[in-house]
């Protein structure tokens, strides 16, 4: 079965980069430019993994993560925060908001797909 990944990311190049890498490895990829659209897409498609940028216009990534965790339909989907935020406590904040994992930008194209695959099927914390 083809796994589906949802990318919520406002930067077009980064969206394209992640999409390119995941599609190249056999993922079906959906993408959204902000949290609100991301939540709608998630409910419609129930992806196998959600890649979530933290610095988003409007609703920030932490809020998106919290809403996913509160949504009965979505709460089992693993969420990976992908962010270039790197100040102290960012990782803890992301995990606290309900993310299963944390990938720091810039992503490494050689390990990115493997990192994402590692979260597939994982139960949320």
């Amino acid at each position, binding site marked *: 079965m083809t796994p589906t990944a949802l990318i919520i990311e406002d930067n077009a190049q980064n969206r394209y*980069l992640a999409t*390119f890498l995941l599609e190249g490895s056999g993922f079906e990829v959906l993408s959204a430019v902000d949290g609100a659209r991301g939540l709608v897409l998630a409910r419609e498609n129930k992806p196998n993994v959600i890649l979530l940028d933290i610095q988003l216009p409007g609703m920030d990534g932490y809020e998106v993560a919290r809403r996913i965790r509160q949504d009965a339909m979505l709460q089992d989907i693993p969420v990976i925060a992908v962010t*270039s935020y790197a100040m102290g406590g960012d990782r803890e904040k992301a995990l606290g908001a309900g993310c299963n994992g944390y990938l720091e930008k810039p992503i490494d194209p050689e390990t990115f797909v493997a990192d994402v695959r590692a979260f597939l099927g994982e139960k949320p914390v």
Partner: protein
Amino acid sequence: MSERADMLPFGSRALRVAIIYAVVSLLWIWFSDQALFLIYQDHQLAARWSLYKGVAFVLLTSLLLWLVIRREIRLVREEKRLSDSMIESMPGVVYFYDMSGRFLRWNRNFERVSGYSADELARMHPLDFFRGEDVGRVERRIERVFDHGESSVEALFTNKDGSQIPYFFTGRRVTYRDAPCLIGIGIDISDRVRMEKELRDLNRNLESRIAARTSDLKEALLRAEESDQMKSAFLATMSHELRTPLNSIIGFTGILLQDLAGPLNDEQRKQMGMVQTSARHLLALINDVLDLSKVEAGQLVVTPTTFNVATLLERVVRTVRGMAEQQGLFLDLEVASSVDTITSDERRVEQILLNLVNNAIKFTESGGVTIRAAHTDANLKISVVDTGIGIRDEDLRHLFSPFVQIDAGLSRQHEGTGLGLAISRKLAFLLDGEIDVESVFQEGSTFTLTLPTKCCNTRRAG
């Protein structure tokens, strides 16, 4: 000396003299009369001589009495002159009054200071010289003198024209003509009081100046901290903004180099490799700047855990072994058997060690690097010893400053961000440890990381 003790021998001596006088006189009268009656059988003649003898006796004793009394009077006068001149020569006011407060004696100073004449003073009461709350205080102390023998008090002495002078009075009870009296001395303490006031004013002034300066400093500190935090927040945002485009650059370069977007020719591969190297270097710089700003913004939290030192060192060696082998260098690890676990922030210790070992490899052209770990007291010492280019003495003190790479000639050859040591030292401080360096130019360097085996109270960097 008490008066009573003085009186007794004097009294008994007077009595003794009187008794001796009476006995000798009676014996003289009796024996001389007997002698006269023996010499002169004629009673009439004897009686006449007895009369002469009596007259001579009276004259002689009168002369003696006159001499004695004159001497006593002189002594008393001298004594009085002495006590008068003593009283007058006193620097302060001296006075003497009885229990009803009637002045019996005083020195001229008292008249001069108070401004009252002798006649006026004779009619005044000791409490007339005080005003306000001093009256009660002085009265209580006077009572104390009569009850307990002595006392003292500081009060404002008010003179005839109403001006007031601070005085220190001491009083003593004496018995005069069988009645208790008070003899007292008062000393002008204007100078002392003025100096005390000046001192107090000076202190207050100093205190207010210190307070003002302290608040200035606090404000300056606050401003400095604010500007520090703004600077750090700015750096963090900058780093974030810089990393976003780098995500594309590194990501797509990687994709191209992996031929995921189609095959590259050799020249394209070489050039894309250059792009990748530069982008990674840029990323390293940004990461280091971010790290430094995190430490300086106090946003770096120490997370102590207990971990095995040997395991950590082996991991570090695994990470850098490839790099050492590429340069043909040996890489040795010597862990003393006493080294076991420590409590510290494992990730930060690893970061420091990776930096030190990376540096050692980078700056060593032949020979190699030895990592030694040993315990000293409550500390763990990890030394990174290289056989590299070494550091000149004059360069040692700049070594930990940001963006300083020693020896410009070599810096191009030895690529790095120039922030590694600055960050490492700050991290070491954060872990209650330190980094020392010893070096012999052109022979090699030893960087030693000293860490407490138990660190830290979780706290933020400052």
